[in-house]
């Protein structure tokens, strides 16, 4: 059986490469191509039709929409790049920078501010993973407990945090009053609304996906490395700094990139449930602005243009990922 596998696979591999090189100008081959298509089509059709109808076509339509002005009721009106100019354009008025849509830039800033929770969440995930990698009674139960908040439904989680952050009767301010701090009106204050959302997000994500990835990374580090370092007299911090951290670099990099991409598109559920984007727009993110522009104010074209600006940001991070990630892949 083993021999069969070895003998067969190179032959089939070579055959597999064939279509790409020989499909041209050969009647018999073309006939075979049609037969192959007839076999493959039933497998492909359901997904492919759905893909074209609900992914590929909407992407093209979105480009078209972004150069129109459309409220869904009257016919769309072609406006060229006006939406983009209104969104990201700026001018200088007596030497002062004037944005065409200052709200948009404010919401970009909000989004970036809220993404400030990413390093905290990553440090927390790594910390929890290191704890779980130790030995103590009830480890598997505790792993589930750490993991549980990330399994909850975001809308319900934000509802719960509204209650915990309630200024007069919420649990958090009661705990703070115990240590002599008068807690703020978290969700009603422009200063504290963003930290409040970050806190809720941290709780819901710190023990989740990223912690599991870090844990898998930690379990992949050979124990001998630590034994050898111990023999050389390396202190725990040094073992972390010179063994754990560098060997987890690919995991850290992967988590950073995925978190930034998710963060740029984030904040909708939290803003909708907890603050409705307020107070004074202090928790409105790009996503929430897109939603409002499209479905509250019926500015379909403007919202589509905004989605493409958001795409550009996400794409920039993806490109960076390829550049840097490629180098990482050679290292490990």
């Amino acid at each position, binding site marked *: 059986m083993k021999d069969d596998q070895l003998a067969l696979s190179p032959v089939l591999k070579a055959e597999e490469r064939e279509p790409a090189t020989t499909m041209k100008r050969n009647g018999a081959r073309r006939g075979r191509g049609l037969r192959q298509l007839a076999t493959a089509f039933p497998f492909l059709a359901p*997904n492919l039709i759905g893909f074209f109808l609900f992914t590929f076509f909407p992407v093209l339509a*979105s480009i078209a929409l972004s150069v129109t002005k459309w409220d869904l009721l009257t016919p769309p009106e072609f406006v060229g790049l006006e939406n983009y100019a209104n969104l990201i354009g700026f001018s200088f008025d007596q030497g002062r920078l004037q944005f065409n849509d200052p709200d948009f830039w404010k919401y970009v800033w909000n989004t970036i501010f809220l993404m400030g929770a990413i390093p905290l969440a990553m440090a927390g995930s790594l910390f929890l993973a290191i704890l779980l990698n130790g030995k103590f009674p009830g480890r598997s139960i505790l792993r589930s407990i750490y993991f549980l908040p990330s399994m909850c439904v975001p809308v319900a989680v934000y509802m719960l945090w509204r*209650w915990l952050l309630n200024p007069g009767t919420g649990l958090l301010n009661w705990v703070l009053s115990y240590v002599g701090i008068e807690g703020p009106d978290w969700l009603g204050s422009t200063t504290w609304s963003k930290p409040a959302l970050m806190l809720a997000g941290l709780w819901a994500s710190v023990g989740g996906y990223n912690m599991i990835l870090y844990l898998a990374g930690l379990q992949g580090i050979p124990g001998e490395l630590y034994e050898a370092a111990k023999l050389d007299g390396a202190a725990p911090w040094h073992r972390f700094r010179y063994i754990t951290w560098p060997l987890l670099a690919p995991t850290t990099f992967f988590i950073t990139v995925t978190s930034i991409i998710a963060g740029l598109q984030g904040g909708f559920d939290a803003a909708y449930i907890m603050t409705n984007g307020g107070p004074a727009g202090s928790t409105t993110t790009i996503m929430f602005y897109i939603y409002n522009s499209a479905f509250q104010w019926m500015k379909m074209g403007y919202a589509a243009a905004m989605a493409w600006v958001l795409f550009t940001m996400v794409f920039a991070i993806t490109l960076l990922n390829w550049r840097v990630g490629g180098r990482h892949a050679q290292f490990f």
Partner: protein
Amino acid sequence: MPSSSDKSRWRGLTPGRIVFTLFVWGLGFTMLFPLLWMISTSLKAPGKEYIMPPSLIPDPVHWRNYLEVFRAMPFGRFLFNTCLVTVAVTFGQALTCSMAAFAFSRLKFPGRDKIFLLYLTTLMIPGVVTLIPLFVIMQYFGWIDTYQALIIPGLFSAYGTFLLRQFFLGIPLALEDSAHIDGCGPWGVYWNVILPLSKPALVTLIIFTFMGAWRDFLWPLVITNSLEMRTLTVGLSIFRGAYVSDWNLMMAGSCLVMAPLVFVFLFNQRFFVEGIQLTGIKG
């Protein structure tokens, strides 16, 4: 750090290890506490949730809050809608993606790699880009506020196809070949060889789709407008608007929205963890 040579977790409990154990458990309890608080509030009699100092144990236990939730809002209907949509999307996506992934990885046909490249390209495009055109398409089809709109766009996924294709490529061709010798056509190979051998990848896709569909908020919010068509998440947000200071009822509603998903998680944890590792490492 505890020494790794200890065979038993209980033997040799040094003071350092006791402190460590207490610390990790204390941290776990702190993380769990908001959820306990949610359950506790949902069982307190109206008005009792404001009593200071707060107590975790509701006295008396007021189960009626849950009945009240069902009376105030058609939560039964929301639950039915979410279950229907989640199950349909999860299994539909597993089916269409595995079939397409089979074609992309095991069949030869002209243009295969070009089409797959198109799939890959759309992976980078955030869902928000297609949100508005999708809404317009649904409106054009007359599907606004229908199950079709909640389910059908979710049945196809470039990501799912990609994930499964990568996994299928790793299955030895020799296994397929012996199936051919036994007289299996492509459907036989797909159903009897490839699918049973790709359980880890299928389970991963199913779990992620299931979670995503259950939690989804933006799409059902945009595409439905009658109360009967709302899903649990959207229903809860409407409930919030109507009963804004009835914290007992709101926490009871939140518990209801979360409970099924949490139970699914508790009984299938292993798959969640393995699924995350599979996609994380491959991604």
